[in-house]
């Protein structure tokens, strides 16, 4: 038995789950319908795939939610995991699931997949025969991913950086790297059986004033860490910045650099997709405004040429959306994408050049770290503040980088902290910032967070 397999046996020997039958799972995946694989759908579709977010505590509610989504012609179904499971607190998840089932209310903000188990969950996935994407935010996702893959969920979102810095306060970063290595390997292994399992990174990060350069660096690093373990289908992603031009610039640069670095590291056979998240920051409390915001995100996704769009709903500011409003959001996005034709190509050479420069500069510093493996280089870079994101709750994050918006609403680096940026590429950003008279940076940040209100 391989080391990995031994570790897997230990992981699935968990008091909260029934016995785990690896052979049966292997057989299931080998013979699974192609329709469950998003990698297959990416290959065979010219259109942007539409994927909502969503998860409820009980099986029945998720089943109904999927029914609504299918009626809206959804392309990819989501399974969003509750926040207790995300932090491996299966006990609390169990308790809240029981309360939810008894009282027919939602005491969890997502589906506690581990508690439900793969035998139950798979029924639903096979029933709908549509790709499902797992959305969690879990630094130690080993058991969760085993359960997901066994359930027929063949796209796994996350990564050691993107599911840690925005999602955890003090989970050890080095452990996160190792646990995600496990996830990558399991995905790579299963990818040999049928169509590839798709891995997706989470570009929105803390969804608040993220500088494109940092986002792209993190996307590329998680991509490389994943491909390194044998994954063959990977999606990089970012979320609407608040400036249409910055979105276009980000898109052009991330597509170009993802391919470049994948090839450079020898992964020429890997397929790389681009995912665009509709506005991830603070939403307006006016639902008509939310509709307008969502529609605008859709238009931008189409213009920047994403392969998949992940949607929000008009309920965003209020709480978990009802299944009806979630399905309505999908229907609206589908309508818009269908109707939207004659898309122009947007280029901004100067901006693209500087963004490329910033990304290359940071990556160079990361690669130059003298650790022996890529994950250790990345680990050190985060510790040193070469990678530092605004609004991370995590204690390892330096929290020195400060970003604000320029007058066109582009997110610009105001304070570069320890980011290894040249004077030139930093000045390009910083010089575009304009503070009002008597406006403090803090005031500006608060205003910029609320830019869509």
């Amino acid at each position, binding site marked *: 038995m391989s080391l990995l397999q031994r570790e897997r046996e230990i992981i699935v020997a968990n008091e909260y789950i029934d016995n785990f039958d690896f052979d049966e799972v292997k057989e299931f995946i080998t013979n699974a319908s192609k329709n469950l694989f998003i990698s297959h759908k990416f290959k065979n579709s010219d259109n942007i795939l539409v994927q909502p977010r969503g998860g409820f505590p009980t099986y029945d509610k998720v089943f109904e939610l999927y029914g609504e989504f299918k009626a809206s012609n959804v392309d990819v179904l989501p399974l969003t995991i509750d*926040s*207790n499971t*995300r*932090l491996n*607190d299966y006990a*609390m998840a169990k308790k*809240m699931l029981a*309360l939810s089932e008894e009282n027919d209310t*939602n*005491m*969890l*903000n997502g589906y506690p997949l581990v508690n439900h188990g793969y035998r139950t969950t798979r029924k639903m996935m096979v029933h709908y025969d549509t790709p499902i994407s797992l959305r969690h*935010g879990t630094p130690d996702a080993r058991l969760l991913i085993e359960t997901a893959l066994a359930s027929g969920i063949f796209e796994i979102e996350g990564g050691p950086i993107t599911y840690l810095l*925005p*999602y*955890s*306060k*003090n989970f050890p970063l080095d452990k996160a790297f190792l646990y995600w290595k496990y996830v990558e390997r399991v995905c790579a292994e299963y990818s040999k059986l049928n169509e590839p399992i798709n891995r997706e990174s989470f570009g929105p990060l*803390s969804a*608040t004033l993220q500088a494109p350069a940092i986002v792209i660096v993190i996307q590329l690093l998680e991509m490389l860490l994943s491909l390194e373990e044998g994954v063959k289908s990977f999606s990089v992603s970012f979320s609407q910045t608040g400036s249409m031009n910055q979105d276009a610039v980000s898109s052009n640069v991330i597509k170009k650099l993802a391919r470049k670095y994948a090839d450079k590291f020898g992964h020429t056979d890997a397929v790389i997709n681009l995912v665009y998240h509709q506005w991830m920051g*603070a939403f307006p*409390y006016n639902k008509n405004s939310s509709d307008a915001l969502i529609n605008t995100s859709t238009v931008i996704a189409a213009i920047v040429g994403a392969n998949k769009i992940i949607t929000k709903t008009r*309920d965003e*500011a*209020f*709480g*978990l959306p*009802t299944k009806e409003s979630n399905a309505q959001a999908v229907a609206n996005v589908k309508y818009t994408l269908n109707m939207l034709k004659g898309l122009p190509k947007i280029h901004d050479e100067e901006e693209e050049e500087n963004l490329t420069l910033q990304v290359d500069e940071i990556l160079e510093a990361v690669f130059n770290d003298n650790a022996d493996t890529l994950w250790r280089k990345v680990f050190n870079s985060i510790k040193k503040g070469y990678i530092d994101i605004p*609004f*991370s*709750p995590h204690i390892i994050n330096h929290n020195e980088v400060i970003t604000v918006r320029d007058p066109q609403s582009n997110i610009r680096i105001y304070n570069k902290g320890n980011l290894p940026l040249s004077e030139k590429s930093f000045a390009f950003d910083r010089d575009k910032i304009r503070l009002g008279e008597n406006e403090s940076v*803090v005031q500006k940040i*608060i205003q910029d*967070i609320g830019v869509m209100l």
Partner: protein
Amino acid sequence: MKVVTGVVGNDIHVVANRLIDISLQERGFTVFNLGVNTYLEEFIDAVIETDADVLLVSSLNGEAEGWCRDLGILKSKFDLSGVVFMIGGNLSVGEVSTEEIIPKFQNYGFDLVSHQSDLNEGLDELEALLKERL
């Protein structure tokens, strides 16, 4: 005045927490910010340790209901009669009306409950209550 603040439960939404920290400081409070992902017991410990006047809990991701049910029990264990208990943010999973939520959290033992409302208005209320109590 000393305030202990933080985000309760397995909730990692940090943006509001940062703004609350800044706003409290601007209003002259001494702030002990426990950050996100803080359990009720940790809050109570910090209140006792720092001899705080206010416990200001945030919850954004809808977990508050699950985590705050036991506040009464905890309060009964210690003498915290001088402390103002406040909670705010987004206090339920899904969309629930404010009228429904406020009494629920008052029953749990909060003096001030602020659901999906403006931070500054909430802090104004807090200061008004503190003045009253003097």
